[in-house]
Structure formats: C-alpha cells, structure tokens
C-alpha cells in the first residue's frame, strides 16, 4: 500500500499529532476532561489522515454538484442557527428565564450540525439544485 506524502497530508498529520501531544501535556499539568478530549480527537484525526493518505488526491476533490449541495445546506442551516440564537437571546434578555450558556451552546451546536446533515441529505435526494 502506497502512502501519499504531500504537504496536505503532512500538515493534517502534524496537526493531529500536535493535538495528541497538547492533550497529554494538558492532562499532566491541568487535570480536566479537556486533555482526554484533545487526545481522542487527535487519534480520530490521525486515523482519518492515514486513510486519506492511501487515496489519490482526485478522490477527495468535490464536483460542482456536491459544492452546490453543501452551499445550499449551509445557507439554510446558517439561518436556522441564527434564528435559534436570536430566540435564545430574546428569552434571556426580555424574560425572567435565565438560560445557562453551557446548555444553550450545546443546543446551538446540535441544531446547527444536525440541520446541516439533514438538509445535505435532503438536497442530495431531491436532485435538482436550482
């Protein structure tokens, strides 16, 4: 099996290994879950980098249809997420309900990511992207 050694792969792998090293250092000096999270994310990225290194560069180049699909899904997901943030802000400012950002941030992230995935899947199935 042949591995690519171009600058994109080297940059990606150095970033993932850097994350693992940063996670180990953070775990030693500041005991928290952030270190474990960094190590796990770095390991996942390393595996992804090794997989990507075995494929040719053309394999990952998106065509025009995929670009259009991503843009359309991102456009709608952006508006969904902005509306969620505006509604949370209005509730936080104008009512007696105080929303903790720990919960609201996770809610915003989940809504944003899932709406992007679902819309991407939907526009992929739908076909014509006009």
């Amino acid at each position: 099996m042949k591995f690519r050694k171009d600058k994109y792969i080297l940059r990606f792998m150095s970033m993932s290994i850097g994350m693992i090293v940063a996670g180990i250092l953070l775990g030693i000096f500041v005991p928290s879950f952030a270190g474990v999270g960094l190590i796990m994310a770095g390991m996942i990225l390393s595996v992804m980098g090794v997989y990507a290194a075995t494929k040719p560069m053309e394999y990952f180049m998106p065509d025009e249809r995929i670009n259009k699909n991503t843009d359309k899904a991102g456009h709608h997901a952006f508006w969904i997420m902005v509306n969620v943030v505006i509604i949370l802000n209005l509730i936080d400012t104008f009512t007696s309900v105080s929303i903790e950002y720990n919960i609201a941030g996770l809610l915003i992230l989940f809504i944003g990511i899932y709406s992007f995935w679902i819309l991407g899947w939907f526009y992929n199935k739908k076909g014509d992207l006009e």
Partner: protein
Amino acid sequence: MKLINNKRYTVLLVLGLLDIMIGLAEMLKIIPHSGTTTPGVSMMGAGIIILILGLYLSKTPESESMPDERTMKRDMKVQSTTFGIILAYVTVLLLMDVSWSSNSINMGDFFLIFSRPEDMSVLFSRYMSIIFVAIISVVALTFYYNKKGDLE
C-alpha cells in the same frame, strides 16, 4: 405613483406596523413583562426599519429588487462559510465557559466580557457576541467574494 406593486412586500409592511404597535403597547405598560429589560424601544426600532425596508422594496420594480443568479450564489457561499465560523465560535465559547466554570483555567479579568457577563449583560452577552460575529463575517465575506469574482 403606485405604492405597492408586489404583494410579497406587503407582508413586510404589516410586520413593521405590528412590531411598532407591540412596542408601543409594551412601553405604555399595556402588555406586562417579567424581564429586567424593556423590549419596547428595540421592538419599535426594528418595526421602523422593517417598515422603511418594506416601503422601499414595494416601490421598486420586481426586476430590480429580485437578486440575480450570481448574487444568490454569492450569498449562499457567504452564509455557508459563516455557518462554519459560527460553529467554531460557539465551540470556543463553550470550551472557555466550561474551563472557567470548572476553575481549571484561571484567566483573571482578562476576558471581562465573557467571564462576567452580568456586568455588561445586554450589549455583550454571549448570544449577542454570536450575532455580532455572524454579521461581521457576512459583511466581510460578501465584500471578499464580490471582489474575488469567480464563484465556483
């Protein structure tokens, strides 16, 4: 001069008038609210802006007010990129919040805006900062993609 030549923009006019009326009712204490900040002034301001926008758009012909294909492509690319920026920003804010609340990282008062939001709760809350980042990103990226030209 015909004022409204497109039915779609009458929605904006109605929305603007409704906003102003709710804002007035709020300011005159007809509608009670339990929050610490009065939303009346901001609702009236938003209503006036929507009303002016609706009046302007209803007076311009549809061929001028409707965006062309290039503008639509540009806007989609801009908003798709801004979506990624907001995701990254919300994640960074969340990580900072978790780090501060668990006292694992002590940054002192360096990031006063984010570490003690109650000091400047209205203008610099986390939610407002997300909206602020989104607006700045949209404006900057629109300018960039407009200058760049080819939207592929």
